[in-house]
């Protein structure tokens, strides 16, 4: 027989995995929109709202598990981390939404100089990879996978600062492009940070250690 | 203080021990194979045995038990199950009184009830002894049943077993050792009673000849032989019969002790 709490933990885990898939879709959709110049705002908005509501449900569920089942040790760490991760996923949704908003308002990157859209495309790829790493490592509490995010995080940080430097140096292009791109790389960097937080939480769940992967 | 208790214990054991020793010493000489099998001779005549007395005791006690045991057990069950009914309180009180009625009174009762009607008979003796037996069996049965924990009853009732069935199966099954002990002890008790038999079965020298006829019995035979003027011939026989009687009672007690030492095993309902 399984423990009584296992049913609840399984439900919570399933909720988070669904959120993880949805965030990946939302972020990749909004980035695609930016790079191709298509307006995905309303779709991304729906996804973001869904993510917020799901994160509230997940928090609620976690709260119930604590009230009813007196979890301890790894169960308690799991539930605490899941609550944080649900929030992180909701943040993903927000950033995806913000990126789509920029796209809608200022026209995206299709008409920007090639070096800008190239840079951002590269960064997007890396960041999407990090999002995938975070959701995959969460699904199986895979510590090894979670730790690999550390190197990618550094790369993305690098790319972020290098882009800002380049932009200052070149100081060219339309102001729409400048603003859009700066904001977009900013959001990308934040998404990367949250992906790292998620991976740190995964390590915490599995080992009880609080690590710094940034 | 402890030494005082020791002394008291020894003082209590001396008469018990001496009875056994005396009976064995004086009675053993009379006991022989023929002692068990031959008819009772007239007073003073040598030879013979106390066969009929043993037979008589067995028959009268068996008959008395066949009346006393069912009545006693079922009364005990009633008193245990309907503890607070008014009739139960009255019955319990009367039962306790009956336990202490002098046995000669029971003898007279048997005489008045049966002997006057049909004459000296085994039936009269059995009835008198049964009346002696009933209060003891009732009381021990009631106590044995009350000792059965309420949780056992509840468990059976919660399974949808009607109350009467619970009592007759689960409760009795659990109490049966206690009830059996009570029955055996009361049988041992009545085997040795003399007064009721003197006034009901009269006593005889011959083998059993019918339920409405007098018969021999061990206590009566002991009495008769002990009153005989032919001391040399008859007194040893009296001791011999006493020895047999004590022996029977001892056996019954040993059986009871052994039986109650058994552990509970799986049994059928």
């Amino acid at each position, binding site marked *: *027989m*399984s*423990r*009584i*709490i296992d049913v609840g933990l399984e439900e919570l885990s399933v909720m988070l995995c669904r959120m993880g898939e949805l965030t990946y879709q939302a972020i990749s959709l909004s980035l695609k929109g930016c790079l191709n110049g298509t307006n995905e705002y309303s779709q991304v908005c729906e996804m973001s709202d869904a993510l917020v509501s799901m994160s509230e449900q997940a928090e609620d569920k976690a*709260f*119930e598990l604590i*009230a*009813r*089942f*007196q979890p301890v040790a790894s169960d308690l760490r799991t539930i605490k981390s899941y609550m944080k991760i649900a929030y992180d996923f909701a943040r993903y949704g927000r950033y995806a939404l913000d990126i789509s908003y920029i796209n809608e308002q200022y026209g995206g990157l299709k008409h920007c100089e090639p070096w800008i859209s190239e840079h951002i495309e590269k960064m997007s790829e890396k960041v999407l990879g990090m999002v995938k790493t975070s959701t995959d490592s969460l699904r199986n509490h895979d510590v090894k996978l979670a730790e690999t995010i550390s190197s990618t995080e550094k790369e993305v940080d690098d790319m972020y600062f290098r882009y800002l430097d380049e932009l200052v140096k070149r100081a060219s292009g339309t102001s729409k492009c400048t603003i859009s791109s700066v904001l977009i790389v900013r959001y990308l960097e934040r998404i990367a940070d949250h992906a790292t937080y998620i991976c740190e939480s995964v390590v915490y769940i599995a080992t009880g250690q609080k690590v710094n992967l940034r | 203080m402890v030494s005082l208790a020791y002394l008291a214990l020894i003082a209590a054991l001396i008469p018990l021990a001496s009875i056994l020793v005396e009976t064995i010493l004086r009675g053993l000489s009379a006991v022989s194979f023929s002692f068990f099998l031959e008819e009772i001779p007239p007073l003073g005549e040598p030879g013979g045995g106390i066969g009929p007395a043993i037979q008589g005791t067995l028959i009268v006690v068996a008959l008395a038990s066949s009346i006393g045991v069912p009545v006693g057990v079922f009364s005990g069950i009633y008193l245990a199950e309907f503890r*607070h009914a008014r009739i139960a309180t009255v019955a319990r009180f009367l039962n306790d009184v009956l336990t202490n009625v002098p046995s000669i009174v029971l003898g007279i009762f048997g005489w008045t009830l049966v002997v006057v009607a049909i004459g000296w008979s085994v039936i009269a003796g059995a009835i008198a002894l049964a009346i002696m037996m009933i209060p003891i069996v009732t009381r021990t049965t009631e106590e044995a049943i009350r000792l059965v*924990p309420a*949780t*056992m009853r*509840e*468990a*059976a*009732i*919660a*399974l*949808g*077993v*009607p*109350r009467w*069935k*619970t009592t007759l*199966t*689960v409760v009795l*099954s*659990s109490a049966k050792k206690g009830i059996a002990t009570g029955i055996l002890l009361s049988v041992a008790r009545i085997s040795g009673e003399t007064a009721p038999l003197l006034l009901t079965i009269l006593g005889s020298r011959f083998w059993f000849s019918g339920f409405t006829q007098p018969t021999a019995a061990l206590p009566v035979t002991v009495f008769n032989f002990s009153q005989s003027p032919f001391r040399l011939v008859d007194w040893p026989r009296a001791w011999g019969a006493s020895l047999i009687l004590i022996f029977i009672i001892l056996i019954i007690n040993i059986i009871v002790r052994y039986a109650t030492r058994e552990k*509970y*095993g*799986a*049994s*059928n*309902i």
Partner: protein
Amino acid sequence: MIYKIDIENLNAWFGSKQVLRDITMKIKENMVTAIIGPSGCGKTTLIRCLNRMHELIPGARVTGRVLLDGGDIYGEGVDPVTVRRKIGMVFQKPNPFPMMSIYDNTVAGLKLNGVSDKHRLDETVEKSLKAAHLWDEVKADLEKSGASLSGGQQQRLCIARALAIEPEVILMDEPTSALDPTAASKIEQLIRVLAQDYTVIIVTHNMQQAARVSDCTAFLYLGKLVEYGSTKDLFENPKSELTEKYITGEFG
């Protein structure tokens, strides 16, 4: 939502002392309902009214209706014995019949009611012991005395015994309070499994157990039903201040 048991205006007395006051509640089918409350609040009396065992106590009295699938178990001409075959009970202290084997204990309810078909009894023994998650531990020793098992095993044997008569509802009166934590936890898991096929009502003085095991919880105080709702709501956000005080440990 199907209501298995519908309690209407239930009052109960021990002689002149009133123990339950106007209890009205509906118990849902295939769920675990817990009844909690401080000592003396009437929770044991309440479940004993549900299988008509309260009235066995001399001087006990019950008024009100208790509907099982719509039929009042206190109705005219209803035989309490048939009620108890549909509503089984497991007690606080495990009470297997000591003079019977594990096999006989399990089917005691059937044998005592006249079933003697060996094939049917064999089947029932296996089915019930499996349902009580005891089969694997005892299948090689069915002839051993029921009292030779450990406390937790004895309680599971009592559960098997209750299941063997195929009730629809199972009442449990503090089923784990006489057991050690590991055995208790096994019973709790078993209760959750049983709820899939039966309606379970459990009385417990251990609030955390009620929180873990039940879907709905009722809080009784001095014979009155103070609050009754889903366990989640009652433990996260009780509606009544009295409930809040009790579950946070301010009294009781």
